[in-house]
């Protein structure tokens, strides 16, 4: 125990003495938490629309104003030909072209049907799908309005209407920030904890001080604990800062029990730091440790369910995701913070993370060699 006291004293001194690093550890996650949710906005708005109106009728004008007043589209150009409008897309000035053929209004009346041509820049598939959908929807609504004006309702409105009353629990306003912030916080804590911890030990290897430690009769698990505890504390502090930002900037107040959250975090940090330690026992240089950590963080991050749901992955990928500590904590964050889940709800997750913590740390201690 006494040994650990001295190890901790030393680690904390070193951490607090390196002001630049300390600042980056504490401030960078805050900045990220402030910027990321602003940037990470999946809502599709302000779709640039290029219009080719070959009809110039009152009805075509009205349709265009319906579209622009919807809030989703902004009219960026009127073009005389499709070719001209296409050029706008090539230059990224327009996302969607709407071409209204000549005699649009006349044909609609005479032939009962009139086509419109819509071309969507689909390089960004999601945006294209949503944009196209919005446009079709607005046109459809406009179509219904015209019908109501031109004919007696009873003549066509014989179809029964099934309404869908949808409600979104826990995030009724469908606010993306509420959805992203807890996940991002987990990602940041993971990155900082894992990276700092693995780099720290490897740094001692690189400058040679670890040899001096290795010739002392120090116990392996004491040494590992001495490295683990400081970063465990830092992880807790970063997480707390993040929660405060979530509270005061994004007004996200955890519905569930805060101590449950911290309890889970405590175990989770052990798992993440254990992984960092494990990586450090396999690396000889900081560059190596960093590229290995980066590799895993990147894969964990992509497969965490933060961007795409884990359930939609193929079976083999879901299996890999089972070994991803990040995905458990992101789920738990959403459960506890947004839904108010209780201990029994997160128990399976907690057991899994506890398993990771034990495996990673035991492995790291076994693999840490005082003697080559």
């Amino acid at each position, binding site marked *: 125990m006494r040994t650990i006291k001295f190890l901790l*004293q*030393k680690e904390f001194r070193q951490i607090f*003495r390196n002001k630049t690093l300390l600042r980056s550890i504490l401030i960078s996650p805050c900045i990220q938490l402030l910027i990321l949710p602003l940037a990470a906005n999946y809502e599709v708005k302000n779709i640039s629309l290029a219009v080719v109106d070959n009809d110039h009728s009152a009805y075509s004008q009205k349709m265009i104003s319906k579209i622009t007043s919807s809030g989703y589209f902004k009219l960026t150009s009127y073009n005389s030909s499709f070719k001209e409008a296409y050029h706008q897309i090539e230059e990224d000035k327009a996302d969607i072209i709407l071409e209204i053929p000549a005699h649009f209004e006349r044909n609609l009346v005479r032939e009962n049907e009139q086509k419109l041509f819509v071309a969507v820049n689909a390089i960004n598939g999601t945006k294209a799908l949503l944009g196209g959908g919005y446009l079709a929807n607005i046109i459809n609504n406009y179509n219904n309005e015209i019908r109501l004006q031109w004919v007696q309702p009873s003549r066509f409105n014989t179809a029964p209407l099934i309404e869908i009353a949808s409600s979104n629990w826990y995030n009724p306003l469908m606010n993306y920030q509420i959805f992203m912030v807890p996940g991002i916080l987990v990602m940041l804590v993971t990155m900082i904890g894992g990276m700092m911890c693995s780099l720290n030990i490897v740094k001692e290897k690189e400058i040679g001080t670890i040899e001096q430690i290795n*010739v002392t009769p120090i116990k392996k698990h004491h040494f590992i604990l001495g490295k683990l505890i400081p970063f465990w504390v830092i992880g807790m502090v970063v997480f707390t800062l993040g929660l405060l930002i979530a509270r005061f900037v994004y007004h996200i107040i955890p519905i569930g029990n805060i101590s449950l959250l911290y309890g889970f975090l405590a175990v989770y940090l052990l798992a993440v730091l254990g992984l960092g330690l494990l990586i450090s026992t396999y690396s000889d240089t900081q560059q190596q440790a960093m590229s290995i950590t980066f590799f895993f963080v990147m894969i964990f991050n992509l497969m965490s369910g933060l961007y795409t749901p884990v359930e939609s992955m193929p079976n083999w990928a879901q299996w890999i995701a089972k070994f991803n500590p990040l995905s458990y904590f992101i789920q738990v964050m959403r459960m506890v913070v947004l839904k108010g889940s209780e201990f029994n709800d997160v128990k399976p997750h907690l057991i899994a993370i506890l398993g990771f913590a034990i495996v990673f740390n035991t492995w790291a201690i076994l693999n840490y060699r*005082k003697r080559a």
Partner: protein
Amino acid sequence: MQQPVIKTELLTKRFGSFTAADELTFEVYPGEIFGFLGANGAGKTTAMRMLCGLSLPSSGKATIAGFDIYKQTEKIKQNIGYMSQKFSLYEDLTVIENIRFYAGIYGLSDKEIKAKSNNLLDQLGLQNEAKKLVSELPLGWKQKLSFSVAVIHQPKIVFLDEPTGGVDPVTRRQFWDLIYDASDKGLTVFVTTHYMDEAEYCNRISIMVDGRIEALDTPSNLKKQFSANSMDDVFYQLARGAKRNE
């Protein structure tokens, strides 16, 4: 005769097909200053790392302070100090913090730590520098501090791996005064060097060439044996035949 504190028998370390230390057999007695000489790459550091328990031997036997080098490394570590070639104090800790840290992990009590660190600072004349970061000290001071820290737990043996590289002769002389002091108090000193004047300070020296010990005796006997005027000559005669030279 006394029991040897270091005793090796055919101690060997191979890295793949390369034999870094080849069948080393020697004994070191309590209170001795034992010099371990050799050209660069002769295998001095490898041998020393095995004795300190940092590297596992490929074959052969050895005991340090009566403990087996294979099975009782942790016991050995209680009884030795080590100062590596790579300067190994924490540059971002102060002088006093480094002293307290190492004293602490060797299990000294608070009272001992306080007394020891005061003594040490006095002895080195570092009282005024106690709160300076180690990175701010000149190299000579760092080396002296490093040595004092390595023996802070009063080990039986201290291993010094090229302890005085890169400093002027006066500073080196001061460093050796520290070694003599410690040796007078019964400490066994095992030191590698390639400064021949330092070799003269040792009680006995061994000279390694290409992983083998080619000569082992007191400096004066060696000079007689090789009919040489100085240790330089002795070393030159032996090292000339070396095949590995960096």
